[in-house]
């Protein structure tokens, strides 16, 4: 025994002890407590699996549609059931598969791609998942009670606001999906902060995997695209529930406002589902070309450019609504322009294949199939971007063909490529190559047989969403062919499902990094450990596994950061936004049932509201608030037992950070951007009515007057100022001043709320009477809700201070509350300006 051998043995023992501690800290609980897990590997897996179950359900609905349309004058489904089936098919595919699967996949793999232990807010991910599951089951289950929504997945009023013609299905759609949208936004916030703040040291922003860029762009788009729909949902439900006439032309409303709000969401949404799929290809293609992506900057250009341009396309869903040609022209221009970045991505992939040495495998097969299908979908997209052609194609089977080309080619095929590619990452085993080829060819051939003919079916005059058609119009054989193709496609998916589900217990684990990829997620052991990465490495390349020799061994030996969990806490690194310099050792909360309870109770609020069980709704709302406050109280802004700790390699990092250095501040900031987007949508509604109605507002004195709104504004601004003062006093060590200021601020805020609502109340504005009073009440109510939530936050801050969980040195809470109040003050200023002053100048 030499000394160095002793050292080596000692070193090995130390490593094993570290690994044991890490394993214990990150262990997934067993038994029924398994469902309290919040770790990204568990939640991501549930999330992905659930999204796929919804995909299969919606696929079955799609087959029902094809069965009904196989022959003319068919009566397998009644008109009523058919309308529910196609509405649910679209709704589930878009809201319960396409968007969530991206978030699910990202929660599953993004931390590993960034060599992070977890996302910064694991409990938020878990909350999002349970919301998604509850809302999804609620929406899907409705069809078994003949209560599914039946107005088409974009739910145009006034068909869907007519209580006679649309039953509870419309409420289920609105409330169920609003609930899921909230979960989506939560996931988006999480992913943005994850990409910006949880990268490994050294991974400067020019080195992040392309998937990270796409996640950043897409999550940003969600932040600005979903809130308009939530705003629209609020208008919609107020009309259905309380008869506020936002879409009723007889009382000054306009059905087109819904179309604007829906498509301001709806078109970016198409890119929200498409970009992540392209991101998967951007990970897969370099691996199989065994070369770095050629044109990294171009992909970034394409992702960011698409993200922006996609917000200028929404009216191309409204070309036939009779808007002036010049307006259509702008959107036509943007719709054409967005083809450029989309094309760039495709050419970057081809260029990468050219530079590298392509090896072919099932993921590549699906990637190429995706390219072939999506390119056609993109080209027909350019066709319908031209308004004159769209006037013919709109709402016909041409559009059905186009959108399935983009969504199946641009989302489903890449995702299946991703399944084959990442399956070993998740389970440690590979899927069958032979079954994969069968699945691909069945799906590819079936898809083309099914959907290519639809272009012609549509141009030969077949509108979409018809449950039957007469024979002799030249659609008969085209439809029959489409139905046959749909079943071939379904057979391919069945093969895939069988392959995924077949027991693989006897199959050996594959070697690590089976595809010889270059990115960090392939550091994972086979089978994977719950800790994600043994130690957080220092990165100097876009493809560290290719370019940093010996990286895997050093990571495994714990040579990098956070190789240990001495205090038995879950920890991950927080780094700076651009250059990924280590900034903080972030402690993330562990497993809990609180998030499940909070999601269940929040879900109960929405579900009870659907059935108008108001007492149960109110009780659930209070309980949900209690659960959320309990979760915040126990799981956030925890004061560490020491200010800092060594994280390895001689680096000492703080354990606590507040303000812009903390992830919580960024999450609040990003959330409030989304909140502002929703508010902006409501203000847009106000000015939209002003544009189209000469009597909106009815006169300079029609509104809530000037006195009440300005009184409200002064009170709210005073509450804001006091909050800021409280933050300052706290920093100066004057906790007692904070404890005085916050309750006073809450009082002022509540008084401001009362004054804000007193304006329209005193003016006798009847929201049911016409759209103007309804809009005034809406804006006042929105702001009032925000101020009341702000007051609750102030009281929460007071309680935290009294409990010594908010101290001069540990001030996360008050800084986040102050940040919230900046946005609330802005909301109040805009609301008062619009309500009190605009009628004077209009």
């Amino acid at each position, binding site marked *: 025994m030499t000394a160095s051998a002793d050292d080596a043995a000692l070193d090995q023992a130390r490593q094993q002890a570290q690994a044991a501690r890490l394993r214990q800290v990150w262990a997934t609980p067993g038994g029924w407590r398994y469902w309290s897990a919040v770790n990204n590997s568990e939640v991501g897996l549930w999330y992905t699996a659930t999204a796929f179950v919804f995909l299969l359900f919606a696929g079955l609905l799609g087959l029902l549609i094809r069965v009904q349309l196989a022959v003319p004058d068919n009566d397998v489904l009644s008109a009523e059931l058919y309308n529910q089936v196609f509405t649910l098919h679209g709704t589930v595919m878009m809201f319960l598969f396409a968007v969530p699967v991206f978030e699910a996949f990202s929660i599953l793999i993004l931390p590993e791609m960034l060599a992070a232990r977890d996302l910064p807010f694991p409990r938020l991910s878990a909350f999002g998942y349970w919301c998604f599951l509850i809302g999804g089951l609620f929406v899907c289950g409705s069809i078994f009670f003949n209560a599914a929504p039946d107005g088409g997945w974009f739910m145009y009023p006034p068909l869907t606001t007519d209580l006679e013609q649309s039953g509870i299905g419309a409420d289920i759609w609105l409330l169920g999906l609003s609930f899921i949208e909230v979960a989506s936004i939560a996931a988006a916030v999480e992913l943005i902060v994850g990409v910006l703040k949880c990268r490994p040291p050294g991974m400067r922003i*020019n080195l992040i995997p392309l998937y990270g860029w796409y996640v950043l762009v897409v999550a940003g788009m969600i932040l600005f695209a979903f809130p308009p729909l939530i705003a629209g949902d609020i208008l919609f439900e107020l009309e259905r529930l309380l008869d506020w006439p936002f879409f009723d032309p007889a009382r000054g409303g306009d059905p087109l406002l819904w179309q604007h709000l829906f498509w301001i969401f709806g078109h970016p949404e198409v890119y929200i589902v498409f970009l992540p799929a392209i991101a998967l290809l951007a990970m897969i293609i370099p691996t199989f070309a065994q070369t770095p992506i050629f044109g*990294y*900057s171009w992909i970034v250009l394409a992702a960011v450019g698409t993200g*922006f341009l996609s917000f200028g396309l929404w009216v191309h869903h409204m070309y036939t609504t009779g808007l*002036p040609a010049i307006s259509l022209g702008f959107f036509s221009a943007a719709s054409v322009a967005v083809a450029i970045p989309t094309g760039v991505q495709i050419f970057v992939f081809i260029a990468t294949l050219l530079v590298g040495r392509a090896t072919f495998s099932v993921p590549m097969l699906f990637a190429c199939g995706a390219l072939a299908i999506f390119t056609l979908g993109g080209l027909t997209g350019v066709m319908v971007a031209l308004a004159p052609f769209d006037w013919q194609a709109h709402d016909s089977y041409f559009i059905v063909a186009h959108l399935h080309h983009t969504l199946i080619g641009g989302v489903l095929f890449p995702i299946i490529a991703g399944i084959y590619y990442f399956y070993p990452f998740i389970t440690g085993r590979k899927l069958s190559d032979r079954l994969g080829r069968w699945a691909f060819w069945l799906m590819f051939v079936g898809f083309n047989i099914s959907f290519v003919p639809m272009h012609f079916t549509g141009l030969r005059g077949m509108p979409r969403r018809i449950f039957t058609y007469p024979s002799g119009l030249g659609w008969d054989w085209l439809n029959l062919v489409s139905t046959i193709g749909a079943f071939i496609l379904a057979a391919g998916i069945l093969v895939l499902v069988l392959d995924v589900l077949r027991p693989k217990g006897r199959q050996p684990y594959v070697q690590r990094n089976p595809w010889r990829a270059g990115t960090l997620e392939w550091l994972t052991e086979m089978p994977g450990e719950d800790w994600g990465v043994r130690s957080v490495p220092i990165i100097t390349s876009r493809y560290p596994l290719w370019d940093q020799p010996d990286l895997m061994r050093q990571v495994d030996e714990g040579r990098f950061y956070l190789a240990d969990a001495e205090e038995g806490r879950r920890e991950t690194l927080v780094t700076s936004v651009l250059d990924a310099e280590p900034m903080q050792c972030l402690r993330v909360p562990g497993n809990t049932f609180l998030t499940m309870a909070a999601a269940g109770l929040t879900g109960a609020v929405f579900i009870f509201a659907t059935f108008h069980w108001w007492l149960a709704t109110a009780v659930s709302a209070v309980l949900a608030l209690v659960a959320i406050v309990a979760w915040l109280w126990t799981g956030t802004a925890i004061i560490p037992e020491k200010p800092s700790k060594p994280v390895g390699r001689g680096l000492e990092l703080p354990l606590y950070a507040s303000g812009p250095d903390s992830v919580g501040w960024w999450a609040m900031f990003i959330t409030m951007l989304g909140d502002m987007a929703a508010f902006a949508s409501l203000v847009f509604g106000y000015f939209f009515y002003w544009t*189209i109605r000469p009597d909106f507002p009815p006169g300079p004195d029609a509104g809530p007057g000037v006195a009440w709104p300005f009184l409200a504004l002064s009170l709210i601004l005073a509450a804001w100022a006091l909050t800021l003062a409280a933050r300052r006093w706290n920093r100066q060590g004057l906790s007692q001043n904070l404890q005085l200021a916050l309750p006073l601020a809450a009082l002022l805020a509540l008084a401001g709320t009362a004054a804000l609502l007193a304006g329209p109340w005193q003016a006798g504005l009847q929201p049911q009477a016409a759209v103007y009073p309804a809009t005034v009440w809406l804006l006042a109510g929105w702001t009032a809700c925000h101020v009341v939530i702000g007051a609750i936050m102030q009281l929460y801050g007071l309680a935290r201070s009294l409990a010594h969980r908010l101290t001069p040195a540990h001030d996360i809470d008050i800084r986040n509350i102050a940040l919230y109040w900046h946005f609330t003050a802005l909301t109040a200023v805009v609301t008062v300006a619009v309500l009190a002053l605009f009628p004077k100048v209009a």
Partner: protein
Amino acid sequence: MAAERALQTAGGLWTLIVSPTVWAVHFTLCYAVAAVYCAKAGGGQAADLLPVRAWIAAVTVAALAIILWSGHRALRQWSAGAVDPPHDAATLADRRRFFGLATLLLAGLSCVATIYVALPALFIGDCR
């Protein structure tokens, strides 16, 4: 203070989106003015769009000027292409060059997209 620092470190991210933001503002200004004009101005469907077309020309020139300025700055930041991509070294210089190139490319795209958005004003003369 910390907020300022955050903004400075994120500076590359903000300059990256200057030109697409200009496109978005330009788009909004064109669309909103045309929509309000056609809805509010007399003349109904046959209303002559001349004032709107003049407005679009003006905002287009302004938007293109800002985009070109942004592109020019990006060009310099990219070192005028002195070093070829892929800019994948873990250095401050390569990070800057990467941002320069990406910003430049986005400026180019925004430039094309802005011109596209202005094109309808060339072809369409009334509110029909």
